[in-house]
């Protein structure tokens, strides 16, 4: 059913009785051409692009809970393409361009909102890093501006410019960056994929991998055995568990990242702002809640919830940056389980097992990657060769030493 102001008006007259399910809640068949494990943004986007661009429609997306129950449904919705390394930057810019056309493509308003992303810096060394990154962006045709203190003050007069422990020296601004409505991204892809024949199977947890020698040929699930010549993992923080079922160890750790939302207030914060002297970033949702977050809790976890020290750390940074939020109240906190890779960059690759494809290692930054990740993963699955913009996301780079370490923290995932 096509969505538009006209269909909405028509339905309004009919008491909205004519709407149908946004996506089919399918029961699993016993075999498919491609099985995508994980009904998050990446899995659903992969299925959609496989159907739309690669002519494969006999696909199921298997989701252990409800679609979007993973990180897609609990992230702080920031989208940007302000990456430094040549292995990353073109990929994220490709994603940004897909965001810009997403709503038309999906016929679903995912509220992609390009209100800007500003990364503040507080020291010469941070300015240097921002300049290096901003220049890399510009060299790839991505918009970037280096703001000085005065320009930042003009833009965000409510930041602490006069009594800060670490004074604001300036910021790197990407105006095309912003946010998107995370749940709508999931629903939009699900609807578009479902319309193209993809089976979206909820409450179907993969519990085992069926191997024939060095081939993966299907999976065991809580809803029975399902076979497919191609099994594609897009399970974010659960990747290690799934690959362990196939006997593979991964260069990943699962960590919890918390996020927070305040009570709703009238428009206050224009775009996305990140603090450089502590762990804090913030934006305001269309509902009016300040959505903010900071550092990961820092230890392996599958609990989807965090602890108080991180809450305090995030709020201390928030108050250090914008002391006007002191009297606003935190409404809710939650956590997501992220697949932290050993160099902080993702993996889109084959695995050592035939038929098993891997999309993982997105850390706390994979929401913005959703469209490109789906596209490139679909490309890999359909053509068995990497998409040009995702060529650096190899699984063997840790062994070979061709790392993609934006932060230079090395093999310690909790520091990325």
């Amino acid at each position, binding site marked *: 059913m096509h969505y538009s102001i006209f269909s909405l008006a028509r339905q309004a007259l009919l008491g909205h009785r004519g709407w149908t399910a946004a996506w089919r809640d399918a029961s699993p068949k016993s075999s498919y051409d491609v099985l995508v494990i994980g009904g998050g943004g990446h899995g659903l986007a992969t299925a959609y692009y496989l159907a739309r661009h690669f002519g494969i429609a006999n696909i199921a997306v298997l989701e252990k809970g409800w679609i979007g129950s993973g990180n897609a449904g609990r992230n702080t919705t920031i989208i940007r393409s302000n990456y430094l390394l040549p292995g990353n930057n073109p990929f994220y810019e490709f994603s940004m361009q897909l965001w810009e056309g997403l709503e038309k493509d999906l016929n679903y308003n995912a509220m992609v909102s390009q209100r800007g992303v500003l990364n503040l810096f507080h020291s010469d060394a941070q300015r240097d890093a921002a300049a290096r990154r901003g220049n890399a962006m510009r060299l790839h045709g991505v918009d970037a501006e280096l703001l000085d203190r005065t320009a930042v003050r003009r833009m965000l007069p409510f930041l602490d410019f006069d009594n800060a422990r670490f004074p604001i020296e300036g910021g790197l601004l990407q105006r095309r960056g912003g946010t998107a409505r995370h749940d709508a991204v999931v629903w939009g892809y699900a609807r578009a994929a479902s319309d193209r024949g993809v089976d979206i199977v909820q409450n179907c947890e993969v519990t085992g991998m069926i191997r024939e020698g060095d081939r993966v040929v299907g999976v065991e699930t809580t809803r029975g055995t399902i076979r497919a010549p191609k099994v594609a993992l897009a399970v974010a923080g*659960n990747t*290690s*568990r799934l690959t*362990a079922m196939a006997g593979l*160890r*991964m*260069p*990943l*750790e*699962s960590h919890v990242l918390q996020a927070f939302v305040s009570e709703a207030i009238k428009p206050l914060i224009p775009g996305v702002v990140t603090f450089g002297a502590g762990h804090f970033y913030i934006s305001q949702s269309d509902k009016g809640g300040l959505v903010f977050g900071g550092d990961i809790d*820092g*230890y*392996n*976890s*599958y*609990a989807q919830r965090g*602890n108080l*020290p991180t809450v305090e750390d995030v709020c201390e940074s928030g108050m250090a940056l914008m002391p006007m939020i002191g009297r606003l109240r935190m409404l809710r906190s939650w956590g997501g389980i992220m697949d932290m890779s*050993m160099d902080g960059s993702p993996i889109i690759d084959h695995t050592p097992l035939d038929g098993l494809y891997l999309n993982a290692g997105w850390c706390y930054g994979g929401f913005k990657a959703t469209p490109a990740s789906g596209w490139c993963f679909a490309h890999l699955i359909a053509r068995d060769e990497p998409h040009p913009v995702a060529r650096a996301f190899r699984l063997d780079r*840790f*062994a070979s030493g061709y790392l993609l370490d934006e932060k230079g923290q090395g*093999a*310690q*995932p*909790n520091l990325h």
Partner: protein
Amino acid sequence: MRIPCPFCGNRDVSEFAYLGDASAPRPAADAPDADREFFEAAYLRDNPSGLHRELWYHASGCRSWLEVERNTRTHDITKATFARDRVRA
């Protein structure tokens, strides 16, 4: 979360620094397969949902490295010992 440091007693997690999976010992540099062994020890992690043996450093306390047994699903900690005392493979 509170970690029972065998020296200091129960302390809040904010006093500790985390290193992760304690299962891989440092391989011998002169082993014939050293390149692969070091790669695996440095990069491949046990990342279970459930019991996990892991290294923590009591950075704001007694400066001991601890080996902690913790459930990554519930965050329950069942054991914490000095890493220096661990039985080495």
